[in-house]
């Protein structure tokens, strides 16, 4: 089976056709095309069926999509019945989504953002931004290569490979680290803005912050942080307009 590197590159755009019906499905089909090319000469009918399956509904975290892509492509070459491959795809959606969300969106990204914010406040400026981009993308690229290779090697037994992999251990470590980094960053960032404004202004901003935390928790989804912010800004403008 050839086309691994082209498939890996195409995985960067796996969410390109994101939609509410097939979600990542068409993007997965696009990434699968180079992997399935060799099947065309071996078994054209099987190739057509595989292409149809590759673009059906699928959803998971984009950085772990390679696991499902590799596993299903391997299964197509191994002659696994189509219905079984469809079941494998469906079964992988939730675990890969949950693992990827915890590892990246709730773990690595806030950890690196928190660290970058601290670095900006401490004067690193451009280096903070470049360091953030470099560290995230090294982790993301390495995960993408590992995902596709593991999927291609494991085929139908990809579930076992995921269970034995480093992912669960990484999630256990990265979550608390992210919490710590964000915890350090928030007071430092607040001080970075407020140190040049003075105590009365600082107390006003902190009062708005406390009010925002309280009311957005109280109202839940009905009053998001952005809605609260827009409301507060409009109220201030009206207040200044009425009492110039």
């Amino acid at each position, binding site marked *: 089976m050839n086309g691994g590197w082209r498939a890996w590159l195409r995985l960067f755009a796996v969410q390109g056709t994101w939609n509410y019906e097939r979600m990542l499905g068409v993007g997965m089909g696009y990434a699968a095309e180079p992997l399935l090319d060799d099947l065309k000469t071996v078994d054209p009918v099987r190739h057509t069926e595989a292409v149809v399956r590759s673009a059906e509904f699928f959803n998971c975290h984009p950085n772990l999509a390679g696991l499902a892509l590799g596993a299903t492509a391997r299964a197509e070459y191994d002659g696994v019945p189509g219905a079984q491959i469809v079941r494998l795809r469906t079964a992988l959606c939730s675990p890969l989504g949950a693992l990827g969300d915890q590892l990246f969106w709730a773990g690595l990204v806030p950890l690196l953002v928190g660290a970058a914010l601290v670095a900006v406040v401490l004067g690193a400026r451009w280096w903070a931004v470049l360091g953030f*981009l470099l560290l995230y993308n090294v982790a993301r690229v390495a995960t993408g290569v590992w995902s596709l290779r593991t999927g291609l090697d494991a085929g139908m037994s990809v579930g076992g490979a995921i269970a034995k992999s480093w992912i669960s251990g990484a999630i256990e470590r990265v979550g608390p680290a992210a919490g710590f980094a964000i915890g350090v960053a928030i007071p430092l960032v*607040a001080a970075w803005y407020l140190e040049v404004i003075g105590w009365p202004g600082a107390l006003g901003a902190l009062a708005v912050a*406390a009010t925002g935390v309280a009311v957005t928790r109280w109202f839940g989804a009905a009053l998001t942080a952005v809605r609260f912010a827009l409301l507060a800004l409009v109220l201030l403008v009206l207040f*200044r307009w009425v009492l110039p």
Partner: protein
Amino acid sequence: MTDLSGSSAIVLVLWGTIVGLDLVSVPQAMLARPLVAGTVAGWLAGDVEAGLRVGVLFELFALDVLPVGAVRYPDYGPATVAATALASDSPWQFAVGVSAALGLVLAVLGGFSLSAVRRANARAIQRHSAALAAGESGAIRRLQYASLARDAGRAGGLTALGLACAWALAEPVAAMDRSTGLGLTLVALGCALSAAIGGAIRSAGRGPRLRWLGAGALVGLLAAALR
């Protein structure tokens, strides 16, 4: 706001397009994070400090977002680019608040535009359903490229709209009295802090992460006091 030349405006629209594409479609390299989008936009507009101040502010708002599943969330990338353009060349204490207001409106619009693109993608797939059922690889490729172009158009349009609004607002903002400008900045900062704190507490849950968040906050407070 910096008196942007035509070429600078085009470069900012291009950067906003890249940033908007990066959020979901390609390559998801975190260029869409406000810290990155704002700093680069500040450099392009000739005021890196404004880019950092606006970028960090929107980064606090973005910490409240967990982009999972089909949830609709604000698109802070192009919004940060336009807000940075508005804040550039002015003292940040008086400009960041108005820029934040513009950016937040654009971010909400960006969230709606993302949903519109997703619905358009679904309609395109329905139109090509026969080709997909026949296993035509060409149809998959065409759908993918058309969807990417759709998202690029969305991001570019959103950035251009934001820059047009920034251009229209530049004069009234320059004429605004400083106490109102400072008040808006303080309110925007307070709201951004509330978003970051709320998001951090929600993400922490009740497990060990909450304890680590608390420990981090203590270290952060100590470091802020010692600065």
